[in-house]
């Protein structure tokens, strides 16, 4: 948990949209810059912000930019609800509100000198991107780094240019699979869990970070367990309704925890009993 924001935690700061970049259908990326002087918004990989459209509402969105570039803030957003649909209509120059950062972080220090397995499903790549930037900046601190990425179709592959560059640099071993192939797709068709059996890791010195739909994380964690990675070294990023980020509003509870202040990142043993259970 970072230091408390200087202003009240429920008060957003105005940020200007510097650039809007369309990604996949319904998905876009904002580059934001604060409109006022003040402390830069410093975050750690895994954390999220509450983004506001004034008079419309506020939604939690993971940070998907580079933590070492604190003068700008980057968020990848899927337009699915009342607030994000309005967000999609916003253009460069428009002002939005930002509160944060909130939540805990991926275990990047614990992963040093280890093989690292990043397993992501769908838009789960967006919250994982700050981790990837960190691993690339400090590549020498880590051993083998795998990015196992599953999406619905080849059209849904996020950040394709970056994926290509990361792969070609040899810094990451990227394996991609899709649920449904299409013309021109020569890659894998299947689930992320299928990719896990092929990777070469030292399971006693590995850390896995998983982000995607709950059902995907449930089965991915099991598959990683069967590669003999200790449950306590498998980390998941959970999602529930979040309205405040501060633990006041109660919406994000899952069993004994508040995702916004105790999570969103959990080691597998502490969330296993509550994972992929109907209506908890």
């Amino acid at each position: 948990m970072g230091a408390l924001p200087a202003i009240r935690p429920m008060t957003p700061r105005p940020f200007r949209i510097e650039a809007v970049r369309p990604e996949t259908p319904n998905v876009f990326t904002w580059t934001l810059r604060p409109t006022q002087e003040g402390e830069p918004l410093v975050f750690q990989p895994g954390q999220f912000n509450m983004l506001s459209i004034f008079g419309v509402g506020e939604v939690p969105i993971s940070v998907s930019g580079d933590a070492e570039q604190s003068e700008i803030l980057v968020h990848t957003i899927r337009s699915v609800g009342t607030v994000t649909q309005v967000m999609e209509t916003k253009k460069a120059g428009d002002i939005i509100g930002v509160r944060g950062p909130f939540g805990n972080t991926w275990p990047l220090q614990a992963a040093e000198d280890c093989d690292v397995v990043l397993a992501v499903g769908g838009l789960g790549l967006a919250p994982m991107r700050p981790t990837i930037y960190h691993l690339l900046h400090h590549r020498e601190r880590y051993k083998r780094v795998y990015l196992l990425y599953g999406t619905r179709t080849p059209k849904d592959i996020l950040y394709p240019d970056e994926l290509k560059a990361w792969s070609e640099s040899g810094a990451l071993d990227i394996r991609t699979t899709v649920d449904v192939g299409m013309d021109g797709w020569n890659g894998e068709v299947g689930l992320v869990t299928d990719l896990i059996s092929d990777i070469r890791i030292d399971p006693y010195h590995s850390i896995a970070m998983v982000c995607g739909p709950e059902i995907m994380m449930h089965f991915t964690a099991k598959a990683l367990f069967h590669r003999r990675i200790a449950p306590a070294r498998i980390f998941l990023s959970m999602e529930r309704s979040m309205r405040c980020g501060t633990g006041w509003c109660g919406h994000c509870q899952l069993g004994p925890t508040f995702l916004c202040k105790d999570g969103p990142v959990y080691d597998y043993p502490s969330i296993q009993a509550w994972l992929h259970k109907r209506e908890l």
Partner: protein
Amino acid sequence: MHYRLEASDLQQLLDALKADGYALLGPQRQDNAILYDTLESAADLPQGWTDQQEAGQYKLKRREDAAYFGYVVGPRSWKRVFLPPRKRLWSATQQDGAWSIEEEPLPTQKVALIGVRACEIHAIAIQDRVLREGPYPDPYYTTMRAQSLIIAVNCTQAAPTCFCTSMDTGPNATFGFDLSLTELLEPDHGFVVEVGSPKGQALVETLGLPAANDPDQARAQAGVDQARKQIKRTLQRDDVKALLYRNLEHARWDEVASRCLSCANCTMVCPTCFCTEMEDITDLTGDHAERWQRWDSCFHGQFTHVHGGPVRQSTRSRYRQWLTHKLASWEDQFGTTGCVGCGRCIAWCPAGIDLTAEVKAFRESEHSQEKNKR
């Protein structure tokens, strides 16, 4: 050290608080219930009235005596003082494409809470854990708590819905007050006063209260003992967390869901329920926007909304969340149970659902399973 306050001098206590700059909040008869609201004088207190409560029932009735605090608890709790049902967090104004944001000023008025029951003191302490002692203290809550003064009133009678003795929260206040009063009726109407803080001590000195004599102190104790004896409802709380966690998929949840209306009454009257929703509003020009925080409930359909719809769609899952939060996960989160045994959720449930009965049902089901195994 205990003091004696004559019933006829109760107004002097209120006047002393007013003179010290406190706005008074206290019980009064409103809408056929005893509610906490702004108090002008002792004449506003529900003197000579009591409440009759049972599962799904609450009724006011005349008393045969002139007791000021001769009722138990009504549907309002003190949480609205510290966590108002609706409050504005900020306003934002747009000019030439730039937004400026103005935070809502924090309240400055000191308040004195008159007639706080022992279970309610525990409820305030529990909400302190949530809203004052966490990583992000709520500025409004923290401010109001710091400028509040608490005059407790010990219970000398209980309602059938009460179970504070099971929750170890009553019937008398043992901490968390500035003054506590125990009302004595015939033949000489008055109060035994206990001091709980330096502010309380100063009040006693301002009023020049005499020491309470031994018979008065014995009568006060007898009153509290009488309330304790009247309490028949029980909830075995030592292992309730494990009991509920073991039974998350028990058929009893379906049974209670068939009675529960998912109306959220229990969460509105509960003195510890703290869930809120953020609401954004704007004027017609779109140049003025506000964010409001208002009470919400885990029984509401949209409470767990994420893309794709709510996580908890069924009443079964919502009641399960409420009960397991209140009695089990609250302990994991805040190191205390979320229930104080005030019985409000029992009285104000339109279906008369009684959480103590629900807990017993789980326990009995386990007992009978054990028996069958043998």
